[in-house]
């Protein structure tokens, strides 16, 4: 059916779409091709293809950025945060749906209302609070921050999803002698899988790319995440485009690979998340 409907008009649409896509991709061409050139060739003509592939830039940027360290920090904070958010927020949302006491309804409203607070409105006192509780300069401290900032949206999304789950299965499990915790972990949590996938995706893109919060929380060079190390690296080497671009390519690569491998799930997760939100 698909091919029989393929008319001349569709071909025009196809060509237009491909041309726009090529236009969209030009920045990636500039980034990649120049990251492989030596400095003189970039200055000479940044639109040309590299004359010879020059991996030197990458080797030097890798060392100066301490790339493996930055990657590991980003990886650890992202993984631990998405696990924590999925666990704690799903439990909170579940309790709020199943026990809609006045207290729980109020709490839910507060969580939802807080979504309109821009980060910049709380970041200044947050630094002081983080100091009081020694959350500054530690990855666990940063993790606590992501638990707090991520809770609102994550609870909101789980809350909407849990409301649509019928109660009968849980009731029969209780009759069979399952504890309230067992009901949640053995029965409800597995049922939340589609929403958990969405939550993992939304939160991992956000936390991996987040710059300002780690910038305020982490001063030590050895704790830097990828956005932080790219920021300080680029600042130092602004005029040395060969190094700076190689550093940028390395900063961009992990998340692009993550996206390309999981793109189907990411795009459907984004859709699910935004329709609910």
């Amino acid at each position, binding site marked *: 059916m698909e091919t029989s*409907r*393929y008319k001349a008009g*569709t071909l025009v*649409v196809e060509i237009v*779409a491909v041309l726009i*896509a090529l236009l*969209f*991709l*030009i*920045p990636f061409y500039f*980034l990649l091709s*120049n990251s492989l050139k030596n400095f003189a060739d970039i200055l000479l003509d*940044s*639109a*040309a293809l590299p004359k010879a592939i020059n991996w030197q830039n990458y080797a030097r940027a890798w060392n100066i950025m301490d790339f493996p360290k930055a990657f590991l920090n980003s990886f650890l904070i992202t993984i631990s945060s998405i696990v924590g958010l999925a666990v*704690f927020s799903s*439990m*909170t949302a579940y*309790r*709020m749906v199943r*026990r809609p006491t006045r207290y729980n309804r109020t*709490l839910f409203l507060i*969580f939802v209302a807080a979504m309109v*607070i*821009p*980060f*910049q409105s*709380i*970041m*200044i*006192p*947050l*630094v*002081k*609070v983080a100091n009081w509780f020694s959350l500054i300069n530690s990855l666990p401290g940063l993790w*606590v921050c992501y638990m*707090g*900032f991520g*809770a*609102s949206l994550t609870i909101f999304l789980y809350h909407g999803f849990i409301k649509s789950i019928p109660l009968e299965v849980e*009731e029969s499990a*209780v009759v069979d002698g399952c504890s309230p915790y067992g009901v*949640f972990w053995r029965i409800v949590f597995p049922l939340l899988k589609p929403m958990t996938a969405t939550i993992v995706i939304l939160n991992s893109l956000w936390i*991996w*790319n987040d*710059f*300002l919060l780690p910038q*305020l929380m982490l001063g030590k060079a050895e704790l830097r995440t990828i*956005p932080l190390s790219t*920021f300080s690296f*680029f600042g130092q080497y602004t005029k040395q485009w060969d190094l700076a671009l190689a550093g940028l390519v390395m900063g961009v690569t992990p*998340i*692009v690979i*993550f996206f*390309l491998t999981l793109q189907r799930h*990411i*795009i459907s997760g*984004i859709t699910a998340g*935004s329709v609910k*939100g």
Partner: protein
Amino acid sequence: MKRQGWSAQWIQQLVFTGPATAAFALIVALPFFMGMYYSFTDWNGVADTAKFVGIDNFITVFKDAGFRNSFIFTFKFTIVAVIISNLVGFLLALLLTQPVKSRNVLRTLFFMPNVIGGLLLGFIWQFIFIKGFAAIGEKTGWSLFNLPWLGDEPTAFWGVIIVTVWSTAGYLMVIYISALINVPRELIEAASIDGATSWQRLRHITVPLIMPAVTISLFLALSWSFKAFDVILSLTKGGPYNSTQSVALNIYLEAFQNNRYGLGTAKAFLFFLIVALLTTLQVWITKRREVQI
């Protein structure tokens, strides 16, 4: 359900809602209320004591030309960015809901800029505006590319817009696609049999039916643009002559560069009021235009 003791209920409540509530209270609620208090003090960020100064900070903020300008820039930027990125996202969605063969690949490509964080996007484009555009200008002779893109006030504004649209249009496209797919084919076909042109079908059938997606997309674009920080920091640092300094960047510099925390929190409090008001208002307005089949 089995009746449980009062204390068992409380333990469960604590186990289930405790951790998220504690983190939220510590990281969001407490700083939010502290910020409200500090916005009435002369807090310098270091001293433990801060003197209460009443509404002095707010008077200073209203007299602050830099803050006013950052608001004007943020408003202009938000209006232009929201309109263009939604239009581009919607047009891409219209293109890619046609039966073209490459649509799955193209959807992925258009979305890709969005997964790269704002900070790195800004750096990538800094290079393209400075070196890449010059090279294209030299080859084509088009004067558009030979402008001092990030060095001149009007072009820097459009530079920030270009980067923003490039990175957000794909995300909005995904939302519009999911809405367009759900528009019933029968309605469109019935209308074309009745002689409606494609523009009429779009205007009177498709657009009203996808209003929920419009609400979401406008809301997202509005809140992203209003809080713009990362892209601007890495692309222009707010320059030239502070002409692209967003409110978010202005607040950041006031607190962490000028060390005027009291003033910074006053600005942040005003910023919160405006963002909350505008996004709520927008959702309320577009929600009223949503129709049910």
